[in-house]
């Protein structure tokens, strides 16, 4: 009887139900994370346990121009790609929210880049960017705009632009579909009320669509920034960080130093130094979301 009494307590019961999930989180999330952070404080190499060396890895990285360049690259890549993903995604979402013929079909096509495995789309882009067989170069040559093939991935700035384009292509569907879902939650009668109130198309977008969409924009763009900031596959397939480290992101550098390079400790330190930036992004959107007072409270 006493056991039943304890089980009747909502808090106890709640904790009980939480346990399996908490255990899973602990084992599969916290443990690897903790191990990674710890490795960053050691001089572990592949095949050799490290010993604790404190901040030595970080001190070294602080002075390492390649690491500094990768930090810059990561920010540049994330910023530019996110801006374009947001702009294009919003534009596509608005377009798809209109009454279009073959709406379902067009929506399915938009989703395509999202469902293709990253590696596959990276290989496709590798082909598109090929110095000999690039379809873009071929088309531009045929149209008479250029006379020799473009070296997309061979020099720093074109390589940066090319990787960003590939990343945007991959990321736009996610943004577009999420924002489209958000757009569809906005009651049509609000637009009608605004039309009667005298709002032009732009004013309806500015005063109705954008503010009502902003909570979803915050969530979607947080995710998008996190994904872009930690991007690895696309870069690794396309450029491996080259040329001259121009497209090395923190994630690719970390991998390169740790696995092919064997310096586990140093690689872990690079990965760990991404955490504060990611946390900052999450906190930024968390507080950004909280301020929307109109969403809370009240009876329904």
């Amino acid at each position, binding site marked *: 009887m006493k056991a039943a009494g304890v089980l009747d307590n909502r808090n106890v019961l709640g904790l009980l139900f939480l346990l399996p999930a908490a255990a899973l989180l602990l084992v599969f999330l916290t443990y690897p994370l903790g191990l990674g952070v710890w490795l960053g404080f050691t001089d572990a190499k592949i095949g050799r346990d490290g010993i604790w060396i404190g901040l030595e890895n970080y001190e070294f990285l602080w002075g390492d121009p390649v690491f500094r360049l990768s930090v810059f690259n990561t920010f540049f890549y994330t910023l530019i790609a996110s801006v374009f993903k947001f702009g294009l995604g919003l534009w596509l979402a608005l377009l798809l929210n209109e009454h279009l013929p073959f709406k379902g079909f067009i929506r399915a096509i938009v989703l395509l880049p999202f469902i293709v495995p990253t590696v596959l789309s990276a290989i496709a882009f590798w082909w598109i960017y090929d110095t000999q067989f690039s379809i873009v170069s071929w088309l531009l040559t045929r149209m008479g705009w250029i006379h020799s093939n473009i070296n997309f991935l061979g020099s720093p700035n074109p390589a940066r632009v090319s990787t960003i384009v590939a990343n945007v292509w991959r990321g736009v569907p996610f943004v577009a579909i999420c924002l489209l879902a958000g757009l569809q939650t906005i009651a049509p*009668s609000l637009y*009608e*009320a605004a039309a*009667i109130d005298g709002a032009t198309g732009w004013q309806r977008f500015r005063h109705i669509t954008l503010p009502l969409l902003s909570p979803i924009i915050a969530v979607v763009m947080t995710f998008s920034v996190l994904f872009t900031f930690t991007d690895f596959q696309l870069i690794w397939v396309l450029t491996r960080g080259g040329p001259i480290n121009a497209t090395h992101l923190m994630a690719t550098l970390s991998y390169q130093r740790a696995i092919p390079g064997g310096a586990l400790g140093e690689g872990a330190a690079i990965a760990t130094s991404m955490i504060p930036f990611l946390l900052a992004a999450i906190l930024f959107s968390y507080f950004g979301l909280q301020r929307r007072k*109109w969403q809370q*409270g009240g009876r329904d």
Partner: protein
Amino acid sequence: MASVTLSGIRKSFGATPVLHGVDVQIDDGEFVVLVGPSGCGKSTLLRMIAGLEETLDGEIRIGDRVVNRVPPKARDIAMVFQNYALYPHMTVRANMAFSMRLAGRAAAEIDARVNDAARILGLDDYLDRFPRQLSGGQRQRVAMGRAIVRDPQVFLFDEPLSNLDAKLRVQMRTEIRALHQRLRTTSIYVTHDQIEAMTMADKIVVMNAGRVEQIGAPLVLYDDPANLFVAGFIGSPAMNFLPGRLAEGGAVVLDNGGRIGVASTAAKPGQAVTVGVRPESLEIAADGLLAEIVVVEPTGADTQIYCTLAGRDVNVVSRERHGFAPGQGIRLRVAPHKALLFDADSGARIR
């Protein structure tokens, strides 16, 4: 303020016709209620007046101006939506001020108008709240406030009370009427609730399946319906209908042989007709037709007696208190001028 004239309005959605030629004249300052069952095209008609639906067939005039091709914002109308359509991210004040802000009015004028409207509607204490923090009735008032700050030529209401509970609905009904008496703005009010129509309207437009069945003052529709549809739709409890055949000498012979005297002169003997009698027009009298009592419902003020007469359900409302029991017989009579005659086939009134 302005009059509104609808002439020959037709509308189809794709291949489905929804309105089949609607003609309505609404005078300056009038409160007109469009009433009819769900799906009869009331909202469509209202939205066409607002400019939210295209009008390709027929003509809509507001004042002297044909507005068929005028966009909603230039029609000088305000609309209260069924779901209120308040901007959720704006405070009550901002909701009401929105149209004036877009029009670029001076801040002082906006403030004055919003405060005026808030005072009229009792919203002074809620101006800085968001719609989510308001009750249904308060939201309804904000929607009205948003309409009245614009001081439009015409108010359009699309079932504005149907999301409220019964008590609040009755209260808001009175408030909207009082507001109209104060502002005197031409108003077109859509509802499926005939009681709302009866209590609020200067003039009722009864619609059915995309057609206007009758237009008139509430009591005219009640006393003098043009057809079976209006007779059955207006009034609660509803009018009783008894089928029969017209006999010589101004009487209808019912299916069970009972006779009801009628005052109509236009009917031909032998014609199949339906007799319509309001529940309160049936008197209990010793020389009446025999009916059987099914249920007795005293409401206090009066008593509703449900019975069967000539195989039909008949509802009697009596001001007196009786000791009737179910199963008992009762004799009912109707004065000839209170028995309305309708053609059994077309449903048209025979006067």
